[in-house]
Structures are given as structure tokens and as C-alpha cells.
């Protein structure tokens, strides 16, 4: 089965859309991982002599109000943005899988109580929930991770629950129970593995959204605290120089937009690859 999932990924990457977006995302991840070595300058090296310089050969993306190299800050910022959103979505997916699977499989009062709370949070925009939570926890990256994780919890819980509920009525599940299987075997050997693919695809798409959310929180000054760069925080500090040094706000903005677009494209390619397999299976 692991072979099949790898096959779907391979198929996704081999398409034009999947290939281009996959390559971009791979570059981004490499950039984030090796940020200290790849940045041309230390991200926090100030040089007040070269404030707000336009992009040039020495500073490819220009400098900001403190004369810091924008490219270096963006590379390090990618590290913040990616690690925050991936961690947050990872936590959210794990929690969502546990909650959704428990609710969908066992039902009953627990399901009703959990789903009422989940539906309640579902009816607020993620940004509102995140803002509220950060206000409670206090600013800082940990707060942002928790806020994003909880903001997306409703989505993954509901998706997992629906998947589990429909898979529960499959004949092979009844067949396993009639062999004498207990709940754990049914859940972990049949239901969750079959429910995983759509949840993972949703998680990938949500990571794009989470990057925007992280940038928004950073823009409000609620995320990474200076001097740690993040794309959102960079844009925030860039607003003051919007007309003097537009690159300080535009380039991180472009990075956010491109990343989200490519994540979505890659997600589409994976969905298409998975669908092809489903059709093949039916035939």
C-alpha cells in the first residue's frame, strides 16, 4: 500500500502542473532547511549606511529600513513560515484524525458533544479564531502554532469523521469484524488507512492557507518577534516604507502568493493522480 501511495506521488510529479509546483516547493524547502548557509548575509546584520536600497547585484532583493539584506531575511523567513504552518497543520491533522475517527467510529454522546463544539468553531472564520487564541496565549511563534492548529481542527475532524462513517459500512469492515477483530484492528488496519488519502490532500491544501494565516498574524505583530524574520512580519514593517522601498513589502508578499499557488497546484496534481488510481480500481 505504501508502494501505491508513492506511485500516486510519482504520477503527480510526472505531470506538468505537478512537476513545476513540486520543483518550486522542493527548492523552497531546501532554502528553508539550509537558510544559514544559503543566505548571502546574516539576516540580522544591520548596516544603516545602505538603508532602503533598491535591488542591485550586491543585494539582489534590496535592503530594508535598517539596511538588512531582504533576500537573506526572506530565506530565513521561509524557514519560519514553513515550519510554523507545517507544524501547526501537522498537529491539527493528528488531533483531527483522533477526534474524527473516535466520533465517526463510536458515535454516541461523545460524538454529539465533540461535533457540537467543532461545528461551533466551524462557523467562525479561521482568522478570527486564531486572533482570539493568540490574544489569550500571548504573541510568539508557539502561540501562532497552537492558534493555527486549533483554527483548522474543525476541518480535519469533520473530514475524518465523514470518511470513517462511510467506510464503516463497507463489506470488508463487516468481514473483518466477523473474523473476530476488535475495534483497534478495524480502526488501524482498515478504516484509518483508507481514510488517510483525502485527509492528507486536504492537509496539503490547508498548509497553503496556514501560510497566509501565519503571515497575517505576523503582519499584526502577533507572530515572530523581532529580529526573527517572517514573511508576514517583513511585510508589516515594510508598510511604513511602501513608497520609498516597495520591494520590502512586495517581495515577501510575492513569496507568500507563489508558495500558496504552487501548494494548491501540487495538491490538485496529487488529487488527480489519486483519482486515476480509484478509477483503475473500479474498472
Amino acid at each position: 500500500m505504501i508502494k501505491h501511495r508513492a506511485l500516486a506521488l510519482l504520477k503527480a510529479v510526472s505531470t506538468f502542473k505537478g512537476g513545476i509546483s513540486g520543483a518550486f516547493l522542493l527548492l523552497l524547502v531546501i532554502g528553508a532547511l539550509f537558510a544559514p548557509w544559503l543566505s548571502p548575509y546574516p539576516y540580522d546584520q544591520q548596516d544603516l549606511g545602505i538603508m532602503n536600497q533598491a535591488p542591485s547585484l550586491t543585494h539582489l532583493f534590496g535592503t530594508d529600513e535598517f539596511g538588512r539584506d531582504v533576500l537573506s531575511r526572506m530565506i530565513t523567513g521561509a524557514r519560519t513560515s514553513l515550519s510554523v504552518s507545517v507544524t501547526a497543520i501537522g498537529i491539527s491533522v493528528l488531533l483531527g484524525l483522533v477526534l474524527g475517527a473516535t466520533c465517526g467510529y463510536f458515535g454516541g454522546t461523545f460524538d454529539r458533544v465533540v461535533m457540537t463544539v467543532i461545528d461551533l468553531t466551524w462557523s467562525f472564520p479561521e482568522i478570527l479564531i486564531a486572533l482570539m487564541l493568540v490574544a489569550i496565549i500571548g504573541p510568539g511563534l508557539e502561540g501562532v502554532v497552537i492558534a493555527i492548529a486549533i483554527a483548522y481542527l474543525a476541518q480535519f475532524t469533520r473530514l475524518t469523521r465523514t470518511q470513517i462513517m462511510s467506510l464503516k459500512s463497507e463489506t470488508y469492515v463487516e468481514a473483518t469484524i466477523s473474523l473476530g477483530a476488535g475495534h483497534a484492528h478495524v480502526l488501524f488496519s482498515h478504516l484509518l488507512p483508507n481514510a488517510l488519502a483525502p485527509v492528507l490532500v486536504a492537509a496539503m491544501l490547508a498548509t497553503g492557507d496556514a501560510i497566509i494565516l501565519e503571515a497575517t498574524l505576523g503582519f499584526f505583530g502577533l507572530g515572530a518577534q523581532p529580529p526573527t524574520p517572517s514573511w508576514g512580519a517583513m511585510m508589516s514593517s515594510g508598510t511604513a516604507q511602501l513608497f520609498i522601498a516597495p520591494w520590502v513589502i512586495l517581495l515577501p508578499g510575492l513569496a507568500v502568493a507563489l508558495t500558496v499557488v504552487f501548494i494548491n497546484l501540487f495538491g490538485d496534481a496529487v488529487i488527480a493522480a489519486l483519482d486515476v488510481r480509484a478509477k483503475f480500481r473500479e474498472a
Partner: protein
Amino acid sequence: MSDLLTVNGLSRRFSDGGLFRKRKTFHAVSDVSFTLKKGQILGVVGESGCGKSTLARLVLRLINPSGGQVTFDGVDMASLSRGDMRRLRQRMQLVFQDPYSAIDPRYSIRDALLEPYRVQGVKPKSTDETVASLLDMVGLNSSLAASYPHQLSGGQKQRVGIARALALNPSLVVLDEPTASLDVSVQAQIVALLERLRQELGLTYLFISHDLGLVRYFCDQILVMYLGRIVEVLPSDAAPAHPYTRALLDSTFEPDPKRRRSITRLAGEIPSGYDLPAGCAFANRCPRVSDLCRKVLPTLTSQGSGHQAACHHPLAAVPEVAVDQRSVA
């Protein structure tokens, strides 16, 4: 021979509706009793909605009854703990109607065949040999072990389903329409396989089907169900006494144009299992209906040795009459 399975007054009701709709009760199985001796094949026949599949699941306790008792090899299943029940499942297995969905699509045939052992915590001596011998037992080539369900034909998948059910050496196998979604030639293969396995392994079958012709061929004793109740219990070579069984038999076409059936116009179709009438459930379609039938529910009464029918006006035991329809028309 001793009794392997005793079912007594088994019932199952389902309720739905609630807040905005009148609560309705669906009688899936009502007051069903029978015994199944070791080595016997008992057929349960009826049309959709007669409760035969629910009965199969009640017998295996995959769903809990609303009333009544199931005793398997002297043990009352209701008295068992969850763990004991799970262990008992080794001895009673189910083969499904739809072989296409009875195997997890992500499992290879090998994994599917080893799952029973994994579930029961039994370690087979050699997994490769076990898989090969299971496949061989149901007439499949052992090279299929590495395949996935979608690569197999319906008949092959059903053979895998049977092999899986037999992996843990059960005593009782419940066959829930095992051939209904297969071509006739494949059906014949599966039936022959089931017959061979029964003799080799000393199995007892509860065979559920909508095909009275097949049940009469394959089973020793037949239960005919209509809307959740047993309307007739008959040896497979006996002429039916209940008008419904007669109608079922007349609707089963034999591969012989000389024995064309004159279709008795069985008026109407099966009513819903909700709001059952007070009397006989078959009354509104029965050619022999009387006022008594509409008021009083008939109980099973003896029609000869091993033969019971729940009918106020049973048919006399007459040999089958074949009518050549063309000579009438």
C-alpha cells in the same frame, strides 16, 4: 448427529423517525426458530426485504437481537463476554454476497488471507505455506497471492472470500448469497467448490439465497421467509404447502422449454416491513386468502415429517404440474 446451532424465537426490530416524523418500527426478523445439525446444509430462501441477511447476522451476532436466543454448540451467545465472543468467531464464519467489496482494496490477497490469523492472534507455522495451501484449497493458483483484489475476477474474489472464511477451521459457515453477483457458469463452479469443501472439512452450512431452485438443489432442509417470518420449513424434495413457496417455485424457471410455467399472477409486490398487517403478511397477494387470514396470524403447523407451514389453507401435497404455456395461449 448433534445440534450445532439452535435458534429460538429470534427477533430484530429497527426503529427510525423521531423528532419530526412519527417513530416507525421495521420488523426485520420476527420470532424465528430452527435448529441446524452438524454437517447439514440449511437453506434460507426469500426475496429482498424478507430478513434473510439480517437473520444471518443475528445468528453470527454481528448485530444484536431484540429478542430470542442463539445457542452455538451448547453455548448461549448472549452469555458470552466481548472477548469470548470474538474468540468464538473463529468457529463461525461468513461468506459475503458481494466479493467485490468484501476484501479491503488496499490488501494484497496474501495479506487478506493472513488477516484471520492476525485478528485471532494465531501464528501460522509458515505464512507462505499457509497462503499457498489456502489458495490451493479453493482451486486458485498460488501465484495470485501477490495480486490485489481489483486484479481478480468476481469468481476468483469469491474463492478468496471462501478461503478467508475457512482459514481458522470453522464449524459453521454462513453463506450470504455467495453466488448472487456471479455469472451462472461461475455460480456452478462456486457451488461445486462449496460441496467439495463441506465433505472434506465436515462443514455445516447456513445457505442464504433468493433462488429456490438453487436452494432445493444444494440444501437438505429449507426455511422460506416472508417479511421477517418463517412461512414454511420443508425438506428440499418436498412439494410446497404454503402458497408463497408455491409462487416462488413457479417463478423459478427451469432450463427446459417443455416445463414452461404458467405464471400465476401473483398480485402486487412485497409490502414494506413497516406496519405489518395483523394477520398473515402474505394475505394481500395470496390466491387462497380468506377473512381468517387477514385477522389471525397463522403459526407453523406440521405438514408431514420435517415439513411445517404457517398457513390457514395449506396446499395439499400434489406432484408438480408443468404446463406448456404455448398450448394454453
